[in-house]
C-alpha cells in the first residue's frame, strides 16, 4: 500500500482511535515510527499554545517511541493507582483533512472528542481538541512520525493519560 486517499487516511485515524478505545496498546505503539514525536503542547496564556518544546513547557513531549512504551509499561505495571482501575474511553474523530506532502509523507488534520469514564469514582470527562498527524511510508506501511495533540480544555481534572487524548 502506498497511496492513501482521503477515505483511507481518515480510516487510519479511526483505527488508532479504536485501538486506544480498546486499550490495545501493542498494536497502538506499532503505529508509530521509532523516532516519532508525540507532543501535547501546554497553553502559554488565554489564547496561545507553547510552540517550542525545547524552551517551553508541554503537557507531554516525547521524541522516540521508546517513551510511549514506558507510558504503556507504567499503565500495565499494576503499581500505578491512577492506572489500576482503567477508565473506559471512547474517541470520536471528525473533520479529517489530508494533504499529501510528498510520496512518502501525508499530513492529517482532525478534531477529537474523547469521553473518559473514571470507573473508580464514577466521573465522566470529555477532552476535546485537534490532532495533527504526520504519516510516513516505511517499508510499504504508513506510520505516525509525528502526532500533535492540541488540547482545548487543558485544566485537567485530576489526571490524564495517553489513552484519554
Amino acid at each position, binding site marked *: 500500500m502506498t497511496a492513501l486517499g482521503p477515505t483511507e487516511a481518515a480510516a487510519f485515524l479511526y483505527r488508532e482511535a479504536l485501538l486506544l478505545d480498546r486499550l490495545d496498546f501493542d498494536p497502538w505503539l506499532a503505529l508509530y515510527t521509532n523516532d516519532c514525536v508525540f507532543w501535547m503542547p501546554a497553553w502559554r496564556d488565554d489564547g496561545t499554545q*507553547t510552540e517550542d518544546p525545547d524552551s517551553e*513547557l508541554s503537557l507531554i513531549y516525547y521524541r522516540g517511541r521508546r517513551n510511549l512504551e514506558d507510558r504503556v509499561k507504567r499503565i500495565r505495571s499494576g503499581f*500505578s*493507582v491512577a*492506572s489500576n482501575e482503567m477508565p473506559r474511553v471512547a474517541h470520536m474523530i471528525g473533520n479529517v483533512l489530508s494533504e499529501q506532502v510528498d510520496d512518502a509523507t501525508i499530513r492529517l488534520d482532525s478534531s477529537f472528542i474523547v469521553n473518559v469514564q473514571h470507573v473508580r469514582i464514577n466521573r465522566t470527562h470529555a477532552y476535546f481538541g485537534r490532532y495533527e498527524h504526520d504519516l510516513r511510508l516505511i517499508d510499504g506501511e504508513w506510520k505516525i512520525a509525528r502526532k500533535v495533540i492540541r488540547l482545548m480544555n487543558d485544566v485537567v*481534572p485530576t*489526571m490524564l493519560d495517553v489513552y484519554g487524548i
Partner: protein
Amino acid sequence: MKPFILRDLVDDRPMDGVFRVNRALFRDPALFELEMKHVFEGGWVFVGLSTQAERPHDYFTGFIGRVPIIVSRNGDNTLQCFVNACPHKGVRLVRKLCGNARRHTCPYHGWTFDSAGANRNIKWQKSGCYSEAFDAENHDLAAVARFGEYRGFLFASLNADVPSLEDHLGEARKLLDLLADKSPDGLELVPGRVCFTYEANWKMQLENCADQYHFTSTHPSYIRILEQRASEETREVVRSSIGAADFWQETAQGVSGGTMTFDHGHVLNWGVMPVSSANADFERAEQLARAFGEARRNWMFNMRNLTVFPNMQIAENASSQLRVIRPLAPDLTEMQTWCIAPRNESAEARTFRIRQYEDFFNPTGMATPDDTVCYEEAQLGMAEQERPWLQGHARGLMASVEGGNSYADMIDLKPVRSVVADAQLCDESLFAGYYRAWATRMAEVLA
C-alpha cells in the same frame, strides 16, 4: 461565641507524644468558609513572580482566596496589587491571565482605570447627577492591604493587620535565596502554565509536598521506569535527578535528609542529592561553589520541597516546580503549576529541565496522577465517623528536636524544629508546623 473548639480539631499535646488532626479539617463546609476568610483572605499569600509582569503596564491576574486580583506594573515601573473588580458594580475588570495595557475599561458600564489602578473615567459623570457624597468617594481600584516582594516572589494580604513580609517569611527567605541565587539574573517561569484540579481538600496537597513517606509506595510504577531507563542509557530517554540519588531508597545508608519547620507554617522536606550532571543546574556547579562556597552550593543541589504557608510550594527534586494551591471547595482544589528556572541558563540545560519536569510533575505525566488519585481516595475516608482522628502526623515525633542541626548550620538556617533522617524515617511531625500556623490564622474563630 466561637464556632469551633481548637482541641476538637487539632490534638496538639507534645508532652504526651500526641499530634493528631481531625478529619473535619478536610471536609467540614463551615470550617472551609472560615479558612477562606481567615487563612487565605486574612494573611499573607503568594500571588506570583515579579517577572510575570516585567515591563511597564504588564499585568497578570489571579485570586487571593475568593477575591479576584490583578498585579500590575505601572508606568513608573512599580508593581502594585489591586482587587480586580470595578468599584461600580463589582464586575471583574480584567479577564485575561496576563497581558500589557495602559488602560483597563470595565466591559459593563465603561469605567476606565490606568495601570496604576487610578480611575481615569466614569462614563458621563458630569451628566450623572451624582451627589457630592459620591464624588467624595474613592473610585480607584482598591489596593490590597499589604503587598511585598522578596527576591522576585510577590506576596499580598487582604488584611492589614499582619506582620511585615520579612517577618512572615522569616527563615524561609534563606531557602528562597538558595533558589534565586542559582543565577545572577534571578528566576523566571518557563512559558506554559499547567493547571489541574483534584476532588479533595487543599491540605492534601499541602501535606503531600512535604511527605517523604509516600514516595516509594505511591510511585513504584515511576521508580521502575527510572530504574529501567538508568540501566539502558539510551539517548531517547531523559536522565532523572531522582534516579541519580538514593535519599529515598530503602537500602540507603546514613543521613539521607530530614525536615525543618519554621515560624508561620513554612516547612522544608529535604534529601541529599549529589552534585551531578543529572541535575539541570550542573553547568553552573563550579561557578556556584566559587560564588557561595561549597556547602551552600551543595544545598542548592539537594532535594528541597519547600512550602511557604499557605499556598506556595517549590519542589526541587525531579526538576524545579512552582505550585500555587487554590482551594475551591472543601473537596475541590485547583493547582496552578509552572517550571521555575534560573534565567539565562544554557539552552541545553533549559531543555533538560523541561523534559525532566514533564514526565514527573504534569497531571499528564507518570507521577502526579498517582498522588492526586490518592488525595481523592483519602477524601472519601474523611467522612464523619466514630474515629475522627487521623494517624498521619505521628512519624518522627520522637526524632524531632528544637532548633536546627549541623545540616541547617551549613546555610545558617534556624528552624523552630528539625529532624535529621535516614531513608526510612520519613518524618511526618513537620506537618504540625502547618496546623499550628493554621490555628494561629484561625484564632478568631477557634475557642
